[in-house]
């Protein structure tokens, strides 16, 4: 046996390498810069710089694509094509916005992350750490690892490599979830739940991948797709394996019945982390699911369609119905995220080429609105007894009259909510329109009908919050209990996401045309 030097086309991987390299560098920065304040500044600069440069590289790659569909980086392992570049660009944008939110501070100079993750909440050590001005600046490194893992996730064509990337972006998320500054007990609870269920689902994914390997002798997606054509499609082991693989990805998307972690984790995690994973995890998981379905399990479309229908309907119904009775803003948006997982799965009906445009666009609009709305949430704070700023005011009742206190902030929130609801002139409308058209093209009009009904019902709880903000007066005696923060970085994020939401709602054609070019997979084999 002779060793054959592997042929790897490194160039298309530059964006990912930049991000992961910066992540490793960020770990070193942790070791070498002692002052927390300086470290924060350096980490923030490195993070945003790396993400921006990577974004630039993605654009360069995109332009360089020309008419070709993409490059096979390594046969059967990674393929960077137009579709994955579109997803990568989106993830990088989300990453930059999230990094800004990570660095945001309240007027009291308080960050969203705890000053020391290892000491018990409320202990003397925690107070000491806070007084010493410690900061968990490792979150920037973790963010970069997560973004890098997600970017890999979008272009991998191998089920086991996919598992590695899945863990690469999940582990940082598990950790970051546990690091909230306020309500840390909830944050740690959320981390434990997320971790345990995440590990559970990745075990299921892995067993599924093993079964698929067993029935096809292949592990890279294209070869699986080809191999399935040669075996009877009612091979039970293959079907069970495929179901388990898809379940692992649906868990990350947050679809019913694999959604239970979503509300708890969204509520418990530090708000910037919620914003990031609400937007980016869903996008990355959807990207991977698209690739798995279109490359590997395309021949099983008919068999698996039942699963997609059932899960999509269950997600839309459960997400919508339970969101109606929520009293916590973050939790309400979490259930709305579950409902949106349903809308995403609707587009998979029939595995049409239209979905390859519709899904990135939908995830882009959804992600922007998610980051924006959680950014707004991070600005609405409870006021402590001594007049200082306390934790986020997440009870619905505390949002009453926000429109009077801060019309622009409330207006932005209303915009994001309308976008979630899919009201015309917001990005969400175009996103829903595209997704539903894709499903109709796939012949799934009953599913679309249910989806339209679900969005109509869902509009109720979005509008309820808007009504609460603008048409309800601040309760008597509660005027001073809510403080509105005015952090520059957060404001930048809110303005950018709001502007994008409006622009994508009014002039979506530019982005849609770009994504139409991205609706191709590079198929190397066969």
């Amino acid at each position, binding site marked *: 046996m002779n060793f054959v030097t592997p042929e790897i086309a490194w160039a298309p991987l530059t964006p990912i390498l930049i991000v992961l390299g910066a992540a490793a560098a960020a770990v070193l920065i942790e070791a070498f810069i002692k002052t927390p304040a300086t470290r924060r500044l350096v980490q923030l600069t490195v993070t945003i710089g790396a993400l921006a440069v990577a974004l630039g590289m993605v654009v360069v790659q995109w332009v360089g694509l020309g008419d070709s569909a993409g490059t096979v980086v390594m046969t059967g392992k990674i393929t960077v094509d137009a579709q994955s570049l579109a997803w990568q660009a989106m993830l990088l944008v989300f990453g930059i916005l999230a990094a800004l939110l990570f660095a945001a501070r309240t007027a009291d100079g308080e960050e969203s992350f705890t000053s020391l993750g290892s000491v018990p909440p409320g202990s003397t050590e925690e107070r000491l750490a806070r007084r010493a001005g410690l900061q968990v600046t490792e979150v920037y490194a973790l963010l970069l690892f997560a973004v890098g893992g997600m970017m890999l996730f979008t272009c991998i064509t191998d089920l086991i490599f996919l598992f590695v990337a899945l863990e690469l972006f999940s582990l940082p998320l598990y950790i970051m979830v546990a690091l909230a500054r306020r309500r840390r007990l909830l944050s740690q609870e959320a981390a434990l739940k997320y971790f345990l269920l995440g590990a559970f689902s990745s075990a299921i994914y892995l067993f599924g991948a093993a079964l698929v390997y067993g029935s096809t002798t292949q592990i890279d997606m294209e070869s699986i797709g080809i191999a399935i054509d040669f075996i009877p499609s009612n091979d039970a082991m293959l079907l069970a394996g495929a179901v388990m693989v898809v379940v692992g990805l649906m868990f990350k998307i947050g679809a019913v019945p694999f959604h239970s972690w979503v509300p708890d984790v969204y509520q418990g995690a530090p708000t910037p982390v919620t914003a990031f994973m609400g937007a980016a995890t869903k996008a990355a998981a959807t990207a991977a699911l698209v690739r798995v379905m279109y490359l590997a399990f395309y021949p099983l479309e008919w068999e698996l369609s039942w699963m997609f229908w059932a899960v999509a309907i269950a997600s839309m119904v459960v997400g919508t119905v*339970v969101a109606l009775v929520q009293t916590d803003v973050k939790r309400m948006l979490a259930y709305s995220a579950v409902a949106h997982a349903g809308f995403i799965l609707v587009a998979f009906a029939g595995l049409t080429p239209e979905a390859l445009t519709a899904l990135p666009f939908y995830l882009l609009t959804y992600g922007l609105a998610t980051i924006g709305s959680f950014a707004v949430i991070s600005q609405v704070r409870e006021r402590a007894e001594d007049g200082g700023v306390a934790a986020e005011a997440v009870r619905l009742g505390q949002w009453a009259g926000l429109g009077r206190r801060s019309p622009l902030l409330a207006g932005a929130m209303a915009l994001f909510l309308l976008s979630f609801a899919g009201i015309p002139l917001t990005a969400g409308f175009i996103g829903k329109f595209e997704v539903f058209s894709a499903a109709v093209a796939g012949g799934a009009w009953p599913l679309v009908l249910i989806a339209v009904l679900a969005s109509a019902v869902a509009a109720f709880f979005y509008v309820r919050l808007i009504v609460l903000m603008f048409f309800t007066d601040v309760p008597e005696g509660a005027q001073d209990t809510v403080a509105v923060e005015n952090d520059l970085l957060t404001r930048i994020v809110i303005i950018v996401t709001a502007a994008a939401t409006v622009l994508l709602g009014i002039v979506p054609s530019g982005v849609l045309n770009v994504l139409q070019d991205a609706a191709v997979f590079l198929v190397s084999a066969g």
Partner: protein
Amino acid sequence: MQSLIWLAIAIPLASAAFLLVAGKRADAWGHWVGVVASSAAFLVGAGALLEMLGQDAANRATTLTLWEFIPGSDLNVNVGLLVDPLSITFVMLITFVGTLIHFYSVAYMEHDVARRRFFAYLNLFIAAMLLLVLADSYLLLFFGWEGVGLASYLLIGFWNHRNEYATAANKAFVVNRIGDIGLIIAMGMMFAAFGAVDFTTVFAEAPEASTATLTAIGLALLLAACGKSAQFPLQSWLGDAMAGPTPVSALIHAATMVTAGVYLIVRSAPIFNGAPNAQLVVAVVGAITLLLGAFIGMAKDDIKKALAASTMSQIGYMMLAAGLGPIGYAFAIFHLLTHGFFKAGMFLGAGSVMHAMNDQVDMRRFGALRGVMVITWVTFGLGWLAILGIPPFSGYWSKDKIIEAAFVGEGWQPWVLGGAALIGAGLTAFYMSRLFFMTFHGKARWTDDVHPHESSPLMTVPMIVLAVGSAFLGLFMATGDRFTHFLEPVTGHAEHHDPVIPIPVIIALTLALVIVGAAVAWMKYGRADVPETAPAGSLATITARNDFFQDGVNRAVFQRPGQHLTRTLVYADAAIVDGAVNKQAHGWARLGEASRKLQTGQVRSYAATMLVGVVLIALIIVVGGL
């Protein structure tokens, strides 16, 4: 300039955004930004008009595709503007009157702390209204339609610290939503019938569609028009809308927005042409409203509400004309144009009077203002002569044509419609003269604390300009049927038909009724003393004074059930927000509560949910796949 017409929308919109964002820094000079933006929009419109006049009558419609809204789907929705004689007429009216009112508002709102915000809303309104009339598809028109609704809502409730004003704003909002449903339904039916909502496709395919379809679409459009234009039975909001600042009443609730319904009907001419029944309903609604408005106008003592009733009545005339088909379309728009001038002028006059009288609106406390407010008196008087239809002032040329056209036809229609129009003219003369005499003539019945004075030039100059328009615009436009020919490419050529009564007779009858009406008003309100408190009055007066109990009817028919519905919702809301489990929450909420219990917080239950899900799905698919 036609290709730059989008600037007319973009400039006021940008200005509105700027004024809203700029904050307190711009308080000192922000209003001038608003004025400049509106003037710029006017200049763009004027340029487009001049360019259009230089072209052949047949080539005057230009479609401007701005961008593709949703590319690549079966449903090609583009964002485009349509510049043709009809839309350019509206552009000119909106920007010209709008700019004058901007100037006027600078002085009128001088002492208001939120003047900058006011101008932002005004600019927003101008932009939305221009979008409405320039849109090349019903969808885009709908966005403008909603935009003007929003601006109107914001402006009516501008002084929302006063509770009844906020209520008025909400009322206008709700009634307008009812109308909007009509437009949405109409669009849905167009999608179903023609597969598109842009004017070109719809109008090209309308002649082939069945009459039933066209009638249904037409009626839905009429519902929309009724909501926006305060036509029977959705007229109730207009009177209350007078709660807004007077320039708003002049611009939105007299000259422009309320006429959007008429625009919608005239623009949809190809649809209505194929649906005679829908046309008849339009005409009848117009006739009812014109009489209803006139009756209400006779009994109101609030000067703005009387003017509002008059607006309602005059729009009734326009609707009537629009319902008559091709012979009426041009006259509807013509009257709309002249009305825009004289009614805006009179509203500004009323504002000037209110300014002088410490914001009083009760005409019974006015009187004998002729002496102290000469300019206001003269300009208002010109408007009064115009609305009465005295030749050669504007109103004569437009209203008389409508009355003539109403008498064209067969069977009972000309007699009923024509009769209504004719009687309406007499009633108009009465209530407008009543208003005029009560305000400017007779004895002074001022309260002790008022010291009337003429307003500043910034207010009087726009009034003078509008008065000149009220006086001569009609004559200019009517000479040689200039305006009718201008609109012909859009409204279609109308065959000449003879009315059932000879035209000279109609003219004579109309003038006679007008003179009688004015004379009666002079006897009762000009020469005789007007009591300072309103007499109890007969049943008819009370009925009219209370807007024909429209509010009561609305309350019983719409509001009560609606309230019950909202109350349940609010109750459920309160219960949910307070975290209490609401026993009576309807199905969804109960379902939600039930499903919520599944989220126990126990991570082991979550894992169980997942595992059961996996096993079930795998089982079904594996068994189903065998």
